[in-house]
C-alpha cells in the first residue's frame, strides 16, 4: 500500500488511505461538486490537517470518512479495511463536529460518558475514564452542568472530552477551535497537539486557519474547490507552494505576487531591479517575453526612508498596521501595492504618506510562478 501523495510514506505506515474520493450534492436543482477526485492519506500516529477556505470540501471529506455521507466514487481504506458501506458506528472513528453537537439534555458527564455507555463498559470504568479525561482538559468542575450553562470554551472541551474518552482508530476534528477567542484557541490547539502526541493517537483536523495548521500539523493537505492543491509538511508548504494560489493561502500578511522580468542577472519589478541568485536566474532566464510572477513574502522586504529631494524610484506608504512586535506596512509603487512586514522595535518609525525605497532581502527565498496558471517554477519536476 503506497500513496504517491504522501511525503511521509516511507517513514510511517498509513492508517488511512482515501483514494479518488468524489462527492456531489444536489442543491436547488443543480449539482454542486464538493469533492473532486481527492486522494490523500494519514500516517498512523500523525496529526494531519486539511487546510482550505470555506467551501473547499473539508467538512465533506471528514463526513465521508466518518461514514455520515456516502461517496459517489473512490475508496476509503482505514487500518487496512475497506470502509465502503460500513456504518458510522462500526468504523471506530470519533468526530468533533464544527458545531460541537453536544446532547443538550445531558450533563457534561453524560455527554462524555455517552460513547462508553454505548459500549456497555462498567459504571466504575466509565466514571474513571471520564474523570481522567476531564482532569486533562481541566473541566472537572463542569461535569454536572448542562451544555446550556457552559461557556463556549467549556463546551468545546466537553466535545473534545467526548471523543477522547475512548481510543478510536482515527479522530476527525472539524474546525474544533473556530469561534473561540484567540488566547483560548492557542491554548487549546497546544492541548490538542499535546494529547495527540502523548497518546500516540491519529488526528485528522480540518481548519481554514493556516496559522493553526502551521502550528500543530505534521502534514498539511491543502484543499481548494474540492481538489487537493498540495500535500506537504507545513514549512515546505510555506517555502515551496505548488502554485501562486497555495502561496496566497499560506502566510499573513499575504505574499506579494508581482509581474516581473529578467534581464542579465537582475529581476525588474514594480519600479525596482535587483540581482537574484543563480538558481532563480537559471529558471527564469529562458522564459518567454511575457515574463513571470515573482512571489515575495512580506517579511523578506526591507524599507528605508528617503528624502523628498530624490526624484524617482521611491514608493509611498499607504497603510500602517501595528501588530505588536511587528508592523504590517503597505506601500505603493508604479501602481503595485506591496505588503511589508517590519520589525517594530528596531529601525525607523514609518507613517502613512512617507516616501521609502524597498528592496528584497533573503533573495534565496523568492518564489517564481509562471505567468499563466501560476505554477511554481522552482519546484522540481513540475510540468
Amino acid at each position, binding site marked *: 500500500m503506497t500513496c504517491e501523495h504522501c511525503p511521509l510514506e516511507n517513514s510511517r505506515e498509513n492508517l488511512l488511505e482515501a483514494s479518488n474520493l468524489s462527492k456531489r450534492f444536489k442543491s436547488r436543482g443543480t449539482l454542486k461538486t464538493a469533492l473532486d477526485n481527492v486522494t490523500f492519506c494519514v500516517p498512523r500516529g500523525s496529526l494531519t490537517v486539511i487546510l482550505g477556505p470555506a467551501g473547499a470540501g473539508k467538512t465533506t471529506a471528514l463526513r465521508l470518512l466518518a461514514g455520515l455521507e456516502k461517496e459517489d466514487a473512490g475508496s476509503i481504506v482505514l487500518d487496512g479495511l475497506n470502509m465502503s458501506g460500513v456504518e458510522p458506528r462500526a468504523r471506530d472513528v470519533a468526530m468533533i463536529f464544527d458545531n460541537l*453537537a453536544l446532547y443538550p439534555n445531558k450533563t457534561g458527564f453524560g455527554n462524555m460518558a455517552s460513547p462508553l455507555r454505548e459500549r456497555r463498559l462498567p459504571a466504575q470504568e466509565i466514571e474513571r475514564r471520564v474523570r481522567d479525561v476531564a482532569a486533562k482538559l481541566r473541566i472537572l468542575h463542569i461535569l454536572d452542568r448542562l451544555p446550556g450553562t457552559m461557556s463556549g470554551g467549556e463546551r468545546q472541551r466537553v466535545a473534545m472530552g467526548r471523543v477522547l474518552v475512548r481510543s478510536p482508530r482515527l479522530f476527525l476534528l472539524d474546525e474544533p477551535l473556530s469561534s473561540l477567542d484567540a488566547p483560548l484557541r492557542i491554548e487549546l490547539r497546544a492541548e490538542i497537539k499535546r494529547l495527540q502526541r502523548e497518546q500516540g493517537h491519529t488526528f485528522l483536523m480540518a481548519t481554514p486557519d493556516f496559522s493553526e495548521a502551521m502550528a500543530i500539523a505534521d502534514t498539511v493537505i491543502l484543499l481548494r474547490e474540492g481538489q487537493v492543491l498540495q500535500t506537504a509538511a507545513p514549512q515546505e508548504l510555506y517555502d515551496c507552494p505548488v502554485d501562486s494560489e497555495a502561496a496566497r493561502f499560506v502566510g499573513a500578511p499575504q505574499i506579494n505576487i508581482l509581474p516581473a522580468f529578467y534581464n542579465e542577472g537582475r529581476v525588474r519589478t514594480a519600479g525596482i531591479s535587483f540581482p537574484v541568485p543563480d538558481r532563480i536566474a537559471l529558471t527564469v532566464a529562458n522564459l518567454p517575453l511575457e515574463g513571470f510572477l515573482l512571489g515575495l513574502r512580506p517579511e523578506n522586504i526591507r524599507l528605508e526612508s528617503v528624502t523628498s529631494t530624490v526624484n524617482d524610484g521611491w514608493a509611498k506608504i499607504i497603510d500602517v498596521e501595528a501588530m505588536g512586535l511587528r508592523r504590517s506596512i503597505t506601500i505603493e509603487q508604479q501602481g503595485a501595492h506591496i505588503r511589508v512586514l517590519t520589525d517594530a522595535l528596531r529601525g525607523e518609525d514609518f507613517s502613512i504618506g512617507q516616501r521609502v525605497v524597498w528592496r528584497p532581502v533573503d533573495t534565496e527565498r523568492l518564489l517564481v510562478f509562471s505567468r499563466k496558471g501560476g505554477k511554481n517554477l522552482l519546484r522540481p519536476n513540475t510540468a
Partner: protein
Amino acid sequence: MAPRKLGIPLAVVMGAGLAFTLFPIFWLVMTAIKPPIDWNASPAVWLPSCPTFINFLTLFDPDAIREYGVGGVSQSATAAVFGSILASVASTCISVCIGLFSAIGISRYSKGSRSTPLVILSGRMFPPAAIAVPFVIIFSTVSLIDSYVGLIAVYVAVTLPFSTWMLKSFVDDLPREIEEAAMLDGMTRVKAHLTVTIPLIKGGLFSTTMLVFILNWSEFMFALVLSYSNISTIPVQLSKYVTATAGTLYGVQAALAVLAMLPLVAGGFLIQGHLARGMTFGAIKQ
C-alpha cells in the same frame, strides 16, 4: 425568565383582550348551569338566579330535565362521550406516530425529490366536503361506515399531513449532527433517532399531539356523515339537542360543550411546561 412588570396601559389593553376572548366561554359556562327558564330569557340573564346541575344530569339521564317541564331527547350522551374519546385518542396516537416517523424520514433521508412533502400535503387541498361523499360511498361498500374503525381511518388520513408537516419542522430545526454524534458514539440509526432525536423534539411532539387531538375532538362533518346509529361523537351529539316541543335545549348543549372543553384545558395545562422553546440550547456553538 423573570416575571415582567406590566405597565398600566398594557394591562388595560390585555385585560380588554382577555375579556373579549373569554366572554363566550363565560357565557357558555353560565348557560350550562342555568335552569331552562333562564336559557333564552329576555333581557338576558347574566348570572343564573338559581344555579343547577340539571343540564349535566340530563346529558346522561335524558328524562331528568322533565322536572322543569321541558321535553327531553331520547338519547343519552354517554355513547357520544366514549365515542369521542375512542375516536380522538386512537386516531391522534396513530396519526402522530406515523407522522413522527415520516417526519424523521423526510427530514433526514429524503433524497432528490423535494416534492414528497408537498404530495403529502396535497390531500389537504380539497375541502373536506368534497371528499366526504366519496368516503361515504367507499366505506358503504367495504362495510366501514358507521364503525369506529372507519371513523378513525378517516381522522388519521385527514390529520396525518398536519402531524407530518408540523413534526418535520421540529426535526428540521434539530441539528442533524447531534444524531450523527450519537451514531459515532456507537448507536444504530434507529437507536439514535429513538433515544436522541425524539426526546429532543419532545416539545414539538406534545404540541403536535395537542393540535391533532383538538382537530379530531372537534371534527363534525365526517362524524356526521359516517355515523348512523352505532357510533357517535360529542360534536354530532351536540346537534341532536333540538326537540319538537321545547326547541333547542341550550342549557344541555352548553353543559356538553363545557364537558368537551375540559380535556383540552387540562391537556393544555399539562403540556404547558414542555412547550418552551430552546430545548437544544447549548447543543451547538452559536
